[in-house]
């Protein structure tokens, strides 16, 4: 087996271990296993990073062209963003919610990873990579914002219930979770904006027009709109805490649902393999 695939499997295994350890931490309601899980997640992230580097240097692969690679990139960005927050704030147990998502993404991506690599004509161009990279990072940030929002809602409910509960102690503080939401929206919206712009410029070059009323395009624009509005409300009107957390989660669920509907019932020209 090639070294890059070895790294990939190692990362996959480490993501699994970290997920299981995080779940164990939740089950026994103690933070100490989560500490170990954070290290495992860091290890997994490291292996995953090496995988990209080796692929890039060794085989000249571009991880932003094929759907499996893009999923793996998505997972990688989510893990990276979470770990960065972990360094800055005490949000350790948030990992118990990020790590499983990352692992599932990796499993889905692993089905087709490492296959043959023939790039269709339509994707040959620097703008495509930029378009995919910015969109992936932007959407991964939204995913982290939503996970943080989900945990926020749980913690908010626990504190409002006015009962003693070991989970209150375990979960991060509301303010830290809200800060993550804020940061992810603040960076996610402009990145996705640039990604969409890059994509539409490229679409003009290869398809002749910026906009094709393609289901995938509509989906992306909807996502962009929802999060842009959310960010606007946050910054201008001061929506904070409970409301933004709820809307972040709702937006993400809605987008996942429409993505599934789109995938099953519509054909899109935005699919290349």
């Amino acid at each position, binding site marked *: 087996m090639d070294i890059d695939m070895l790294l990939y499997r190692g990362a996959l295994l480490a993501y699994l271990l970290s997920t299981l350890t995080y779940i164990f931490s939740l089950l026994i309601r103690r933070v100490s296993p989560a500490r170990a899980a954070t290290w495992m997640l860091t290890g997994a992230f490291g292996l995953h990073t090496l995988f990209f580097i080796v692929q890039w240097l060794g085989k000249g692969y571009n991880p932003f062209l094929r759907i499996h690679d893009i999923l793996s990139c998505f997972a990688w960005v989510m893990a990276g963003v979470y770990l960065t927050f972990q360094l800055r704030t005490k949000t350790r147990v948030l990992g118990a919610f990020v790590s499983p998502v990352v692992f599932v993404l990796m499993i889905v991506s692993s089905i087709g990873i490492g296959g043959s690599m023939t790039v269709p004509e339509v994707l040959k161009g620097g703008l495509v990579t930029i378009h995919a990279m910015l969109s992936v990072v932007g959407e991964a940030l939204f995913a982290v914002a939503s996970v943080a929002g989900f945990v926020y809602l749980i913690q908010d409910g626990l504190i*409002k219930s*006015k009962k003693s509960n070991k989970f209150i102690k375990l979960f991060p*503080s*509301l*303010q*830290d979770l*809200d800060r993550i939401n804020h940061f992810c929206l603040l960076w996610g919206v402009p990145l996705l904006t640039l990604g969409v712009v890059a994509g539409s410029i490229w679409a003009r070059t290869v398809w002749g027009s910026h906009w094709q009323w393609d289901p995938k395009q509509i989906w992306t624009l909807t996502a962009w709109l929802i999060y842009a509005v959310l960010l606007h409300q946050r910054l201008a009107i*001061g929506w904070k*805490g409970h409301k933004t957390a709820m809307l972040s989660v709702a937006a993400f669920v809605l987008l996942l649902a429409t993505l599934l509907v789109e995938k099953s019932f519509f054909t899109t020209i935005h699919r290349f393999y």
Partner: protein
Amino acid sequence: MNLILIGMNHKTAPVEIRERLSIACNEGFNPLDEIKAIPGVGEALYLSTCNRVEILARTQEHTDAEEGLKSMIYRHGNLGEEDMARCLYVYRDSAAIRHLFRVAASLDSLIMGEPQILGQVKEAYRLAVDHQAAGVILNKLLHRAFRVAKRVRTETGIASHAVSVSYAAVELAKKIFGNLKGKKVLLIGAGEMSELAARHLIKHGGDQIFVTNRTHERAIQMAADFQGVPVDFDHIGDSLREVDIVISSTGATGYILTYDMVAAVLKRRKNRLLFLIDIAVPRDIDPRAGDIDNVYLYNMDNLQDIADDNMQIRRGEAEKGELIVAAETDRYIEWFNTLTVVPTIVSLKEKATGIIHAELERANGWLRNLREEDREGVEILANAIVNKILHDPMTCLKEESQEGSALAYVAAIRRLFRLDGSRDSE
């Protein structure tokens, strides 16, 4: 083992009796010197806190040390023997070890898991060392006790849940705001409980305190206490915009903060999280205010319930602590049992090497005729034979000491090998 622990605590003795003893010990005399002077007492530790007075001593066998200790306590307790005896508990050997471990680990405390007791035990031990009242046995015992306390603290959740109202409030504040650094606190009205909670908040990073009261002079006075800022009572709404945590405890009969006030304030503060603590009875803050998004309202009963629940959690955790104490007690006894065996083995080895040296010395006459390598060979052989012979009895001795029945074997070996010199040879 001859360990004895005599004492009284909050469960067995009313405070009047406990304080008699500890006052007498603090002022009139030095308890350690007096305890050491009791015939038969080898080592001693004296521990006195608000909730307990304990004397731990290692005594010599077949002495009246226990009676001596008791009569000393009766004398200083200045109370009838019967009354005193009812308050006292006496633990011996393993029970005494277990009790000491439980005390150090705060399993025996009035507020289970409170951290001060370990410091007090350490201080008591330091005094015992200063007064040369601690020897091999107590040194080891106390160091073990410190370790037990640390284990119980880190391996169980006994100390990790707030069991007082004001600490429960601080913990909640931390779970809302993460870090209390830079958070502003508004105190409405005066009161012991609210001031205590405010002090805890400041201790954990709370930044600025605003104080308001119906009588402005009182607010100024309190603000001076906290190095805070007095606020006009009629302009509470303005300071509500600034602060993060509000502690209210006025004697007012109606609501000081109504639902509409809080809802309006929240808009003006751009929905920044607000933690309201209402410890007034009757309540100062409309309970419906807690339904507003990003507002967290706790009243006295809520906080008390949490503190009670946490106490329940601590009790559950204490059971794990008891297991640790039991295991560590066994370990200490194990160590104690080898202690008597170890010197026996050492003197057995000394005797054997003594014999080898003496015999080699005696055989020097003909050994001289051998080549140097052969002489060394003979020495090695002699050592090997003796070691082989002693190996099994020594292993057996070590094993028996684990079972706790080593004393008989130790006695036998000492007698068979005449390890105690001429005294036994009579």
